[in-house]
């Protein structure tokens, strides 16, 4: 009976265009090709969900990672504070960063900018990142105010740089530090372009992205980043938001602090005191 109907359907192919080519719905107790393929797809989908779900469960069940001996990254959430009124532009921080992190020549993980501002204009300079300090300044306009602004990776909570990394080399640790895995980085430079603060560069030595790590090898041992360690005026401060009595946390909680380029919604973790409107 079924067999006869199938042949009928095939014969009336021209006339039955409206209902399209129809698969045989069962021949001699077997399974039709369409049913079979649909079944296989469902089965494969189900198997994939089970396997993927299992893998996901396995990974979340792992023990807490320990970046260093006796260091738990869940107990820290770092923040950086810059008081621009105190900076004298000596460049000690830039030199210390270079010495501590072996930063390639002519590249900077931190730098100092000088703003000279008048009613008729403004000028920003940062000769060699301020590593040798600053020379006297000549401007075409009459300056009414001038100040230094140290810059560094903002270690944003909503990072543009991590989002664009195609290989998962950029990431943010649980203690709030944005790092680059040099082993995974393919040096495509997307993150360098994505960072609105210019904090990243491609190292001429490794050809991978490099940036400030807040001296992760120091802070995980309870030390301060090198730039903070050498700052003679207390312009640069480093703190832990998980500690209730931390001076940086208190300053962020109680003072009028600012962040760089807030309109980009990157949620920086570098806070600035006494920042001028000219600073980007």
């Amino acid at each position, binding site marked *: 009976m079924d067999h006869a109907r199938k042949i009928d359907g095939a014969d009336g192919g021209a006339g039955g265009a409206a209902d399209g080519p129809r698969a045989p719905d069962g021949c001699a107790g077997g399974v039709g090709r369409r049913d079979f393929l649909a079944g296989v797809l469902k089965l494969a989908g189900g198997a994939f969900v089970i396997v993927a779900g299992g893998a996901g469960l396995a990974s979340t069940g792992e023990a807490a990672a320990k970046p260093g001996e006796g260091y738990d990254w869940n107990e820290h959430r770092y923040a950086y504070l810059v008081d621009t009124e105190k900076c004298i532009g000596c460049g000690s921080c830039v030199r210390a960063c270079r010495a501590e992190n072996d930063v390639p020549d002519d590249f900077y993980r931190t730098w100092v900018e*000088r703003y000279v501002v008048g009613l008729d204009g403004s000028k920003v300079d940062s000769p060699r990142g301020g590593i040798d300090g600053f020379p006297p300044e000549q401007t075409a306009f009459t300056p009414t105010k001038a100040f230094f602004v140290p810059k560094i990776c903002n270690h944003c909570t909503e990072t543009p740089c991590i989002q664009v990394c195609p290989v998962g080399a950029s990431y943010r640790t649980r203690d709030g530090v944005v790092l680059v895995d040099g*082993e995974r980085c393919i040096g495509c430079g997307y993150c360098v372009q994505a960072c609105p603060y210019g904090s990243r560069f491609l190292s001429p030595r490794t050809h991978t992205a490099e940036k400030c790590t807040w001296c992760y090898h120091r802070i995980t041992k309870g030390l301060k980043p090198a730039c903070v360690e050498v700052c003679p005026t207390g312009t640069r401060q480093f703190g832990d938001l998980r500690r209730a009595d931390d001076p940086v946390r208190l300053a962020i909680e109680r003072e009028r602090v600012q962040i760089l380029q807030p309109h980009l919604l990157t949620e920086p973790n570098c806070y600035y005191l006494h920042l001028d409107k000219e600073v980007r």
Partner: protein
Amino acid sequence: MEHARHVFRAALVLAVATAVVFLGRSLLVPRSYGDYGPYRADNVAEQARVRAPRHGGPASCAGCHAKQAEVRAAGSHKTVSCEVCHAPLAVHVDGTAVKGKMPVDRSFTLCARCHRRIAGRPEKFKQVVLEQHVQGPLESGACLECHDPHSPKL
């Protein structure tokens, strides 16, 4: 019977494809990738021990150079870490063994980096116009003839 063979063939192809995907994935994806997010979790520990800290802070100098440390701590350069003018601790010592000579910069540029009067420095901060402040040529050691760098106030 023939249908069973078809099913078997298709199932075999599916099984092989699945095996290839999982084998390839296990070879290409690093072991700790995805433990905490889309990154290699082992890198966190690697970054923490990427190198030994090179700056030791003033306390690490005071162990051997107690006299200078005392003078510095009592003077107006008390907030200036030793390593600002000298060099990182790692240049000088390795653990407790002396590794190399600590550089001593006696040039006026060392002082000028902080104390030369230029636009941008806070008004309250001690600054000098070098040409007015120093009589004679600006040569190496000019500042140190009058000032002790560890306690510069006269």
